């Protein structure tokens, strides 16, 4: 059974009781557990609930869906979308698909790393940003593209990174 005292911070910024999160997860599992290909949507929803995929949640999902834990872990590790580490309140995804890559996606990524002082897969100390890479959002015409949470930023120039990030800091301050 999951540890009810485990502290989990949801990416939406609200601190929800862990028990409630697992109750919600159970509702989702009821809907998906017998569905063919149900594992990926469950993982997506679980990541939305917890902000990341904690080990306890993955064990719970494996048990309820009657799938080997090694397989669940394999699926989580396969998709860069999934994270097993707590993430910042804003997740930046830099597209390194072919179009974005040739139009400077790599330079955008380098600029972000420098600006935030973190590497891919890491979170800033103030927990404001996490940095990830992705392969194609389907926005090749806007290359190079990055996504911050659900916002797509198009034709990003490495020199304009600071300006792009600024509003997110501002929102942070307002919420605080």
């Amino acid at each position, binding site marked *: 059974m999951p540890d009810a005292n485990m502290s989990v911070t949801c990416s939406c910024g609200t601190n929800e009781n862990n028990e409630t999160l697992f109750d919600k997860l159970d509702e989702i599992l009821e809907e998906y557990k017998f569905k063919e290909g149900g594992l990926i949507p469950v993982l997506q929803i679980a990541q939305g609930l917890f902000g990341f995929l904690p080990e306890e949640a993955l064990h719970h999902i494996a048990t309820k869906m009657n799938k*080997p*834990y090694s*397989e669940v*872990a*394999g699926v989580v590790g396969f998709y860069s979308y999934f994270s097993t580490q707590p993430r910042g309140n804003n997740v930046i995804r830099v597209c390194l698909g072919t179009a974005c890559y040739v139009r400077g996606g790599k330079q955008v990524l380098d600029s972000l790393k420098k600006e935030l002082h973190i590497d891919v897969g890491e979170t800033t100390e103030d927990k404001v940003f996490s940095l990830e890479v992705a392969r194609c959002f389907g926005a090749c015409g806007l290359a190079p593209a990055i996504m911050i949470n659900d916002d797509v930023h198009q034709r990003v120039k490495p020199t304009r990174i600071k300006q792009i990030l600024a509003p997110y800091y501002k929102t942070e301050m307002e919420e605080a």
Partner: protein
Amino acid sequence: MINLTIDNTPLTVEEGTTVLEACKQAGIKIPTLCYLENIQAIGACRVCLVEIERVKDLVASCVMPVAEGMKVTTNNRRVREARKVVVELLLSEHEGDCQTCDRNEDCELQSLAHDLGIKELRYEGEKAQRFQDHSTAGLVRDSAKCISCRRCVTVCTAIQTVSALFPQSRGFKTTIGPAFAQNLDTVTCVQCGQCAAVCPVGAISERDQIDEVWAALDDPSKTVVVQTAPAIRAALGECFGMEPGTLVTGKMTTALRNMGFDAIFDTDFSADLTIMEEGTELLTRLKKALVDKEDVALPMFTSCCPSWILFAEYFYPDMLSNLSTCKSPQQMMGAMVKTYYAKKIEKKPEEIVMVSIMPCTAKKHEAARDEMNDSDAQDVDIVLTTRELGKMVKQAGIDFSSLADSEMDAPLGLSTGAADIFANTGGVMEAALRTVYEIVTGRELPFENLHVSPVVGLEGIKDAEITIEGTVPEWSFLEGVTVKVAVAHALGNARKLVDKIRAGEAEYHFVEVMTCPGGCIGGGGQPRITTDEVRKKRIAAIYAEDEGKTLRKSHENEGVAKLYEEFLGVPLGHKSHELLHTKYYKKELV
């Protein structure tokens, strides 16, 4: 039927046959690395490439079904070069320390590179981060050797339903292993070593303990005693190029003597002892159920196999009381050597080093279990696999093939044919029935040549019914009772059978489970690679060994009778309980 031509030779094969299988039928050998007959055909390694007329690219023959009029070419420059490049690319990522690798001269990648005529390594690629896993008693893993063929994943998930291994991460970073590429001790693994048995390279092997044995043999203060499991004698010869199924009992004994072991005993002896204990336990449970109307756990499951024990502790903790409390023959021998035999030769248990030769990697785990110290020392100190013994013989410079036969030592080297057949699926059941039936009726088991034919062979789940008639007075309560038995090998089959029993859909009195396909003759520590053909040959050898013996029932073993007379008292007696029986513990699934 489908007509096709392979290398210009016409051939007719059944529909659904793959090109690879058709080539095999035509006597053409296609190189493979990930393919496993009847188990895995996934086109992962790309080595089995062939050319098909009017198909632009070369195709992986293991996943290509035949089609009417298909023209296949298996040998031209394009095919040969492509296969070569595939293997060269695998080698570019592979840690190629062949001379010091555990799999040197027993490696499919190494011999394939040789067969394809690769003379230089043209590509030097980036190598993935290496990690080695020494976390478990039975198995070691080395990611730098892995070629991601997924054979281990398939046997672990589809055959054994343990699912400890799965591809983790993606692309170049893909590793094959437990969840999140952790060590094996962090997950549910039953140590059966079927992964190591099918690994084409040195990525998963048994923990090498050969040097520990040499150190013991070199230590003059130690008496080094060895026991050899029934399955070794039908397989060890393969380490020296002999045909599968060549019986080498006598040569093996001579080799062990030449290497300096002080006493050579037979796990067959303790297999006979197991039958005395387990047979009595079964009869006791039946009496409790039928006469005393007590609530007793039935069916009783055999407990010789350490991976099956782990499997039950992880997946069926509610049924642990159904497991026979008998220790396995390996552990019974260890306990007897360090008590009964130690007393005879006036040694303390700690002055004796008990070495086992097992067809199994899980036996290494079993020997290290906390419960296995009833002689006031670790009952079995070191466990070597068949493969390790083969290497040790070579290290000793012994020319195995030319050795003369010799006999194992008294008193714990005596055995009956019933013990030999512990090596294969159905064997423990047959051995138990030979003794139990005779105890209860005073007559021989009514099967031709004493073989319980319904439980012989490679079918995954087998069962039999035997009606007991003409009982001796002591066992008259069994008169007219139909004893129902079942046998399963490979844990996937065991799971199916146990699920049925648990759900009340099947009812048995006695069930034999062996973890490895075919039983111990197909164990995780046996010479590679064990196909069904090899299994059949080894099983035939084991039955021949059984049939060649004058004594073929465990209760006829005079050494065992003497052991009870001089030391143990009676089966299930106080001393037996202390030394020959054990407990099981629920384990948390990961």
